[in-house]
């Protein structure tokens, strides 16, 4: 017996939409088996993971808070991957945005006006875009592989953050903890009511909608899709590959930077050595699960946010390692790539007789 692929005459619309659902189902099944193998009640664990987080107001709020950076970064990456450009250093660009945006609340504490908050967001975007400009420049100018450079910068900028919060930006009255001063109210994003959900969520959804419009209704979106699907056709149409690399890196880097400053000014309220539980890497999964489509990314971002909160629940109630979340996320990307094959191909099992007849 042998498993072979048969190309479909045309891409399957049905599989295009059902492949993420199939991938989620496979992840849940394998996840349940994994829990059982670890001696945990599988149904209870799965319930805690995927259902419990959306059963009370407090955890729904937490889900929305966690979905904010995932959606912001995810939409940028969705456009980037669509163009076949590989920025995988969003985690670093997030950190760079957080650093750049925090200059105002940490060094210019006395500037207290609504404009200060706006400037923080803009500087966050600039910070992320600046860091993303490095792999873009190296790719366009010297042909250096952007995957490796964007990833290396993640480690470098993390160390920069670490140095700042332990050195020059450390809170002098912070009992020597590696933390910056807490931001004052002028430098924090407004929240809805007394809850934890902040303005960042609205910004993220607006940006996703704008990018959806750009991708489906403008020449730029068309350019992204053509260059991604058929680079030679794009070149004949006069689209510049180099400009596309710049566009994608500045866009996805800027959005990751924005996510960084929003996370710091909206959720954490100060700088510390760890500002993100790998949002930048999880957003890669969000982008693929969302079909590289900005609207899809909103739903995918919410789902992955649920998995973060569910992971905490499982950790508290069943005493399992918080690493289960990362395993779930990795499995999800794995299965979605697997199921996406079915969009373009049919699977067929060849019997031994058919093979010999070939």
């Amino acid at each position, binding site marked *: 017996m042998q498993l072979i692929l048969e190309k479909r005459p045309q891409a399957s619309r049905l599989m295009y939409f059902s492949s993420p659902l199939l991938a989620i189902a496979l992840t849940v099944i394998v996840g349940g088996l994994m829990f059982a193998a670890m001696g945990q009640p599988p149904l209870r664990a799965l319930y805690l993971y995927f259902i419990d987080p959306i059963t009370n107001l407090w955890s729904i709020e937490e889900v929305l808070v966690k979905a904010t950076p995932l959606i912001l970064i995810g939409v940028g990456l969705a456009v980037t991957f669509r163009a076949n450009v590989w920025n995988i250093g969003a985690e670093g660009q997030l950190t760079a945005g957080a650093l750049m945006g925090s200059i105002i609340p940490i060094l210019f504490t006395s500037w207290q006006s609504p404009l200060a908050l706006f400037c923080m967001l803009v500087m966050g975007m600039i910070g992320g875009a600046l860091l993303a400009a490095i792999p873009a420049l190296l790719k366009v100018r010297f042909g*250096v592989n952007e995957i490796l450079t964007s990833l*290396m910068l993640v480690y470098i900028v993390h160390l920069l953050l670490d140095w700042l919060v332990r050195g020059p930006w450390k809170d002098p009255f912070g009992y020597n903890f590696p933390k910056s001063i807490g931001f004052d109210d002028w430098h924090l994003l407004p929240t809805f009511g007394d809850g934890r959900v902040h303005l960042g969520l609205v910004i993220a959804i607006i940006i996703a909608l704008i990018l959806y419009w750009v991708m489906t209704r403008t020449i730029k979106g068309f350019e992204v899709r053509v260059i991604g699907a058929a680079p030679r056709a794009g070149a004949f149409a006069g689209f510049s590959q180099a400009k596309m690399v710049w566009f994608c890196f500045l866009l996805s880097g800027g959005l990751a930077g924005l996510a960084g400053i929003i996370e710091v000014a909206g959720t954490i309220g100060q700088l510390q050595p760890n500002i993100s539980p790998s949002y930048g890497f999880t957003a890669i999964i969000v982008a693929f699960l969302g079909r590289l489509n900005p609207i899809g990314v909103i739903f995918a971002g919410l789902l992955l946010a649920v998995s973060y909160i569910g992971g905490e629940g499982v950790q508290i109630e069943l005493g399992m390692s918080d690493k289960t979340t*990362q395993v779930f996320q990795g499995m999800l990307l794995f299965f979605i790539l697997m199921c996406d094959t079915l969009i373009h191909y049919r699977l067929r099992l060849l019997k031994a007789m058919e093979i010999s007849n070939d």
Partner: protein
Amino acid sequence: MINYEAILLTIITASTPLLLAAIGELVVERSGVLNLGLEGMMVMGAVAGFAMAQVTGSAWLGVLMAMFAGVAMSLLFAFLTQTLVTNQVATGLSITLLGLGLSGLIGSGFVGMPGVKLESVSIPVLSDLPYVSTLVFGQDPLVYISIILVIGVSYMLKRTRMGLIIRAVGQNHNSAHALGYSVIKVRYACIAFGGMTSGLAGAYLSLVYTPQWIENMTAGRGWIALALVVFSTWLPGRLAAGAYLFGGVWILGLYAQGMGVPIPSQLLSSLPYVATIIALILISTNRRLSVINTPASLGQGFVPDR
């Protein structure tokens, strides 16, 4: 006085995991496949090796288990990218994410335990010679294995029929297919070999370099190994030179910290990553070097016509 022998020894120890992971990936890429899952396979090797050695008390069984774990992860990658022709970049990333999570989960019970160290070999007489003694004859066995692998791969690629087939598959998979070679089988085998050496590299970290389990203990070494393959322009000899150079950079930072150089430790820790970027720029600006050996089918999926 600075003890040069000790410094050289630590450089070799820091370089060997890079070299082990990179030599496998070099073969994988020569067959036309880009496996970005190195970091994930390596960290799985590290945790599997540590756990096995911990349970059985034998470091060698740990090494075997690490190789097994690396191969298992690489076969997942091979199934997706070769049988199901998925995007290789995204699939490699998923292997890395999965490996980092799974290793953390498996290793959560082992954090903080004292590990089992793979003993260095000791050859009578030779290991007692002055100067060269420990440097040449007293290393741990994996160092020798890494060197044998480099020589073996170099010979295999240049001088054997198998090497010729691998290179043909990597250069032009359609022609290789037309000649009757099974592109997918060759690639499966190369990917599994890459998984094995990545597992070895992981075992080196958790059984020799720092004999304990620390979460994410690969610290980007898988990615640096990937950069090394590009830097080597897919030639094993250059790969070895590059690996030792990088090990040197890694150790330089540690020594500078130890000697109290007034530079922030974070800056010194970032040296290997900065060096990687610089190395990539240097090699990429030299078109002649970088293009000539690049496998032409690198990263492209292959579906045979029927």
